[in-house]
C-alpha cells in the first residue's frame, strides 16, 4: 500500500470517527422545546445522579477489589496464591449483563437462595439485589480485573529496591505498601480506573437488566420508546462529555507512567503472612473468585441444562449471526489496525499522526452514542440514494441502513484500538535497522514483508483478531440498535430474555458468550506468563 493510500485511509477513518460525534452535537442546533424541557426538569437530574453514584461506587469498588487482590497475589504468600493469581483474571470473560441477570436470578425473592432459606428456616431476609448497590456490586465484580491487572503489574515491576529503601528508612512492609508501593503504582492504577469509568459510562447491558436509568438506557428509550432522535442525540452528547473527562484522566495517567517507569529489578521476597492473615487472604481471594465467576458460571450451567431444549435451530441462528458479525468485524478491524499501524510507524506528518491518534481514541465512544451517531447520516444517505433511484424511476434498495455495513462501521470505530495495540506491540519489535538489514542483504520491500514482518507480526495479528472477535460477540448496544431486521445475535437474545425476566432461557446464550470470552483471557494469561518467565531467565 502506498503512502498516499495510507494517508487517505487514515483521514477517512478520522472522518468516520468524527462523524457520529459531529452528528450528535449538531442536534443542539434544533432544540426540541417541550420534550427537552421535560427532560431537563425530570429526567436529567436523575440520570446525572444515577450516573455519578454509579461512577463513584464502581470506581471505589474496583479500586478496593483490584488493588487488594493485586497486592496480595503480587507481594504476599498464602495458600492457593498461584492458582488464584490467574483465576482472579477469569471474570474478564463474563459480560456485566450476564453476571447481572445471574445475580438477580440467584438472590431475588424467587431465586434458589431465598427459596432454600425459606424452606429451611421458614423465613428469609430480603436481599435488595435490584438496587443501586446491586448494580454497583455486579459492575465492580466484572470490571475489577482492569485495576487488578495493571496494579499487579505495577507492584511486580517496582522491584524490591524501593521497598528495601523504605525499610532501611524505618518503615514496616505494610507501611511501605501505603507510603511507597501504592504511590509508585498510582499512574497505572489511575489508568486502570479510567478504563473502568469509561466502561461504566458506556455500559448498557448491565444497567438495563437492573432497570437502573443511566444515559445509555435513556438514549435507548428516547429512540425506541419515543422515536425522538434529537433527544437521543442530545443525551448522547452529554454522555460523550462525561466520557471525555474519563479519557483525559486516562491520557494523563499514561504520561505519569512514562515518568515513573519502574525498573524491573529482582522480584521482591514475598511477605509471609501470619497464620490467621494467610487464611484471611485466601478467603478474600476465594470469595471474590466465587462471587465473580465460580458461582455464576455454575448457576448458568444449571440453567442452561434445564433449558437445554432451547438448543434448537433458533439458537443456532443466534450463534450463526454472532459468529458472522464477529468474524467480519474482526477482519475489518484487523485490516484497518494494520493499515493504521503502518501509516503511523515511521514518523509520519504531524497531521496524519494526530488523525491516527484520534482514530484510536474511538474506543472511548460508547456504543449507544455510535449507534445514534451513525443512524442519522446513514438514513440521510439512504434517503438520497433512494431519491436518486426515484429520479431514474427505479426502486433502489437502501445502501447502508439496516445492513451489516453500517454495523461494521460502528464496530470499527469502537474496537479499532483493541485491534491496533497488539499489532503495535508486535510491530515495535521490528526495528528500522532490521528493515535496512534485510535491504542490505538484497531483500526487496515485498520480500522483507513476507520474510521478516509477517512471521514477526503473526502473533500480534492473531491476538488482535481474537480480542476483537470476542468483544464484538459480547457487544450489546450497537448490535441491538442498528442490526438489520431478523439479525438477532446471542447478546440480543440475552437482552430479550432478561427484559422478560426469563433468566433460565438467557443461560444458554450466556454460557456460549462466557466460553468464547475465556479464550482471550487464557491468551492474556499465556502472554503474561511468558514475559514473566522470560524475565526470570
Amino acid at each position: 500500500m502506498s503512502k498516499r493510500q495510507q494517508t487517505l485511509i487514515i483521514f477517512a477513518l478520522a472522518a468516520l470517527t468524527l462523524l457520529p460525534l459531529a452528528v450528535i452535537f449538531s442536534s443542539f442546533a434544533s432544540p426540541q422545546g417541550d420534550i427537552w424541557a421535560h427532560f431537563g426538569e425530570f429526567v436529567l437530574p436523575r440520570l446525572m445522579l444515577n450516573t455519578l453514584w454509579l461512577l463513584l461506587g464502581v470506581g471505589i469498588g474496583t479500586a478496593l477489589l483490584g488493588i487488594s487482590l493485586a497486592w496480595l497475589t503480587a507481594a504476599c504468600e498464602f495458600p492457593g496464591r498461584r492458582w488464584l493469581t490467574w483465576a482472579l483474571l477469569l471474570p474478564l470473560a463474563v459480560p456485566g449483563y450476564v453476571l447481572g441477570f445471574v445475580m438477580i436470578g440467584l438472590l431475588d425473592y424467587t431465586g434458589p437462595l431465598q427459596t432454600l432459606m425459606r424452606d429451611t428456616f421458614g423465613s428469609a431476609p430480603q436481599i435488595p439485589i435490584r438496587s443501586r448497590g446491586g448494580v454497583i456490586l455486579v459492575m465492580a465484580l466484572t470490571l475489577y480485573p482492569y485495576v487488578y491487572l495493571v496494579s499487579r503489574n505495577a507492584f511486580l515491576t517496582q522491584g524490591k529496591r524501593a521497598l528495601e529503601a523504605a525499610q532501611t528508612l524505618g518503615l514496616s512492609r505494610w507501611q511501605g505498601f501505603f507510603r511507597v508501593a501504592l504511590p509508585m503504582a498510582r499512574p497505572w492504577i489511575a489508568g486502570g480506573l479510567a478504563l473502568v469509568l469509561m466502561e461504566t459510562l458506556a455500559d448498557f447491558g448491565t444497567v438495563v437488566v437492573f432497570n437502573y436509568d443511566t444515559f445509555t438506557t435513556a438514549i435507548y428509550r428516547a429512540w425506541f420508546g419515543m422515536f425522538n432522535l434529537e433527544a437521543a442525540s442530545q443525551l448522547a452528547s452529554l454522555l460523550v462529555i462525561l466520557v471525555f473527562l474519563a479519557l483525559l484522566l486516562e491520557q494523563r495517567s499514561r504520561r505519569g507512567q512514562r515518568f515513573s517507569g519502574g525498573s524491573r529489578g529482582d522480584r521482591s521476597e514475598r511477605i509471609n503472612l501470619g497464620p490467621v492473615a494467610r487464611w484471611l487472604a485466601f478467603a478474600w481471594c476465594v470469595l471474590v473468585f466465587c462471587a465473580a465467576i465460580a458461582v455464576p458460571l455454575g448457576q448458568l450451567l444449571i440453567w442452561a441444562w434445564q433449558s437445554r431444549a432451547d438448543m434448537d435451530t433458533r439458537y443456532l441462528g443466534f450463534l450463526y449471526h454472532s459468529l458472522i458479525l464477529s468474524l467480519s468485524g474482526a477482519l475489518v478491524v484487523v485490516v484497518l489496525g494494520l493499515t493504521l499501524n503502518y501509516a503511523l510507524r515511521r514518523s509520519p506528518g504531524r497531521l496524519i499522526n494526530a488523525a491516527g491518534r484520534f482514530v484510536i481514541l474511538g474506543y472511548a465512544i460508547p456504543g449507544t452514542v455510535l449507534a445514534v451517531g451513525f443512524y442519522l447520516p446513514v438514513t440521510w444517505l439512504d434517503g438520497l440514494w433512494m431519491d436518486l433511484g426515484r429520479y431514474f424511476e427505479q426502486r433502489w434498495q437502501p445502501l447502508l441502513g439496516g445492513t451489516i455495513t453500517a454495523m461494521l462501521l460502528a464496530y470499527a470505530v469502537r474496537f479499532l484500538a483493541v485491534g491496533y495495540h497488539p499489532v503495535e506491540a508486535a510491530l515495535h519489535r521490528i526495528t528500522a535497522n532490521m528493515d535496512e538489514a534485510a535491504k542490505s542483504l538484497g531483500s526487496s520491500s515485498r520480500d522483507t514483508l513476507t520474510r521478516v514482518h509477517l512471521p514477526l507480526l503473526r502473533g500480534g495479528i492473531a491476538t488482535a483478531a481474537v480480542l476483537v472477535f470476542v468483544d464484538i460477540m459480547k457487544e450489546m448496544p450497537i448490535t441491538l440498535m442498528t442490526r438489520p431486521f431478523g439479525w438477532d445475535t446471542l447478546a440480543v437474545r440475552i437482552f430479550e430474555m432478561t427484559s422478560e425476566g426469563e433468566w433460565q432461557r438467557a443461560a444458554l446464550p450466556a454460557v456460549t458468550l462466557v466460553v468464547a470470552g475465556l479464550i482471550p483471557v487464557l491468551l492474556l494469561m499465556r502472554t503474561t506468563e511468558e514475559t514473566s518467565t522470560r524475565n526470570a531467565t
Partner: protein
Amino acid sequence: MQLEVSDIQVAFGGNTILDHLSLALETGEIGCLLGASGCGKTTALRAIAGFEAVTQGRILIGGQEISRPGWTLAPQRRRVGMVFQDYALFPHLSAAQNIAFGLRHLSRDDKRRRVAEMLDLVGLAAVAHHYPHQLSGGQQQRVAVARALAPDPALLLMDEPFSNLDVELRERLSVEVRAILKAAGTTALLVTHDQHEAFAIADRVGLMSDGRIEQWDTPYNLYHHPRSRTVARFIGQGVLVPGEVLENGRIRVPMGELPAPMALTAGTAVDVLLRPDDIIHDDTSPLKATITAKAFRGASILYSLELPCGTRLLALVPSHHNHAIGEAIGVRLDTQHVVAFPASA
C-alpha cells in the same frame, strides 16, 4: 579502488549533514570514520549503503557509480553488507537462518555450505541453531558480521559495531573481527567514536568533524602528523603550547628549543603540540613544574603539570616516580616529531 567517495554532500531539508567528503579504499583495506557523535559519520555510512541520497558528488564501488545527485541505486542492489549498531538480527530466525537470509539465490546445498563456512569463520558452529536472544552480545555481533559477509559483498559497512559490548570484549572482538575481515579479504568501512578501536582495526582512519573529513590517513600519521588542530586535539592526549620561531629556524617554547617541522619565518607565533610522552621526568633537569593533578594508570602515572610561567603540560611518567600533588618535579623535553601550527590570529 574498491570504494571511492568523491566530494559528496548530503543535506536534509536545508541542513547540510555532510560536505565535501572524500575517501577511498583499496580492495581488502579496512577503513574507519572516527568522530564524536553528531559529526555525520553514520550519515556517511548510510549514504554509501544507499539509505541516504547524495546532493553533490558521487560514490563508486569497484569503479561502478552507485550514487550521484538525483540517482541512488537501491540498497538491496549494491552488494554492500551492513552490520548495525544494534545488530538488527531477525529474532524469529536462528543464527544459521539469519546468516542464510541474504543467500536466497543459492541452491539448497550451496546455501548450507556457505552458512557452514561463515559459521566456521566466526567460530559459532556450536550455536548455529540458537536464536538471537539465546546468544551473548559478542556472539550476536559475530552472527551479524557473518550474516553481512555471507552474500560476499563488495563492501562491508559497520556502524559502531562494538559499542554495545563491554570494554574487555570490545578490544578482543575488534582484533578478532579484523582477522575475520582480512581472512575473507573483505573491503570494509566502519564508524566509531573510539580511537583505540579505530586504531586496532583499521588500515586507514578518517577523522570527521562537522560533516567533513579532517584527515584521511594511517593511524600512525594521524597521531604523529596531525594536519590540523582539530585532529591534534581529538587524537591522543596532549597540549598545545605557545612558541615562537627564532632566527635559526628553531622554535622556542617555555621549556627549551625544538627543530621546526617546516620552514617558518622568524618571529612567527606558533602552537606546538606536546604529547605526554614528549615530556620526560628528570630530577636533574633545572626546569621545574608543579603537579596540579595526577591519574594512576598502573604502569605509569599521567601528571598534569604547570610551569612557573603558567604553561600547562601533561607528562606520562613510570609509576614508581610517585609524587604528591603540589610537589615540583624536574622535567625536560624529548620530542621526536615536532608538530606546530601557526598561532591563530
